[in-house]
């Protein structure tokens, strides 16, 4: 017998809320912004100031769209505060990431031969594992599956670009392909999801209200 599990329902409700495509468009936009930023840097063009603030610039329409489109159509719901167990997992994850980063910086400064990352920046393998872990676990815990895809795309952007030879050509940046194209695809998926969401939750529900008997 399939039992009623509050945790599963909670996760499903968070997932349903994210199916308005707005978060997908936000994540897609972020990936495209990262690709754009690296393209400007690669060609040594002056990076427009707004690219560096694109995360905030993109966040404003995303939040507004949630308020104007999602909440009135789908209805208002306040989720329970993050539970003890989940909070603990997130804290352990963040703590481990911080300790690992500090250790790598320390090893780089001390020039520990077998652990030296070469510079202050963490090495690519560590970065890959870190990105997949952080985005993957947060995405899984919150039921935001696009976040898992974003983590994998970010983690594999560099090795894929090296593998297909884009990084070694040297005459063009790899990021428009490895970050920009997935970003564009995620944005397009977001737009399709938003259209479907608007069809699923029509405006006719806007005035529905409780009638006391």
């Amino acid at each position, binding site marked *: 017998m399939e039992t009623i599990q509050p945790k599963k329902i909670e996760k499903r409700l968070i997932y349903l809320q994210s199916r308005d495509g707005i978060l997908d468009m936000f994540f897609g936009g972020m990936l495209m912004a990262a690709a754009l930023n690296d393209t400007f840097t690669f060609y040594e063009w002056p990076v427009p100031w707004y690219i560096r603030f694109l995360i905030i610039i993109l966040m404003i329409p995303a939040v507004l769209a949630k308020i104007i489109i999602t909440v009135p159509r789908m209805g208002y719901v306040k989720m329970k505060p993050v539970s003890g167990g989940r909070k603990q997992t997130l804290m352990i994850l963040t703590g481990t990431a911080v300790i690992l980063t500090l250790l790598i910086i320390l090893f780089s400064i001390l020039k520990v031969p077998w652990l030296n990352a070469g510079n202050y920046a963490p090495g690519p393998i560590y970065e890959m594992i870190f990105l997949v872990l952080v985005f993957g676990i947060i995405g899984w815990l919150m039921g935001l599956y696009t976040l898992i895809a974003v983590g994998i795309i970010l983690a594999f952007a560099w090795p894929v670009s090296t593998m297909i030879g884009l990084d070694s050509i040297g005459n063009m940046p790899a990021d428009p392909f490895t970050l920009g194209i997935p970003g564009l695809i995620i944005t397009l998926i977001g737009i399709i999801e938003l259209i479907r969401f608007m069809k699923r939750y029509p405006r006719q*529900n806007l005035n529905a209200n409780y009638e006391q008997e």
Partner: protein
Amino acid sequence: MSKNENDLIRLIIETDKVIHEPARVVILSLLNAVECADFVFLMNQTGLTQGNLSSHLSKLETAGYIEIEKTFHQKRPRTIIRISPNGREAFKAYLKSMKGFYNSIG
């Protein structure tokens, strides 16, 4: 009649009749998973009509299982619904008794 059969009958008879209705089980399952939700959200998620949902909510409110708060948001009336501590306990007990029932019949 064996002791197990007696327990089974007692379990069925003692089931909370206010909760034991498909629509109300769905409503309480949703409310149990969130802090609060408004009427439109519940209507969308349950697929019930405005009148039907109102009727079930009234029954749950009368039993003291939910709390209904009428507010205004952007000049529109908004009804916020949350499960009460009593409702949470009753729903937990209901789930436990249903699990026991299904386990006993295999």
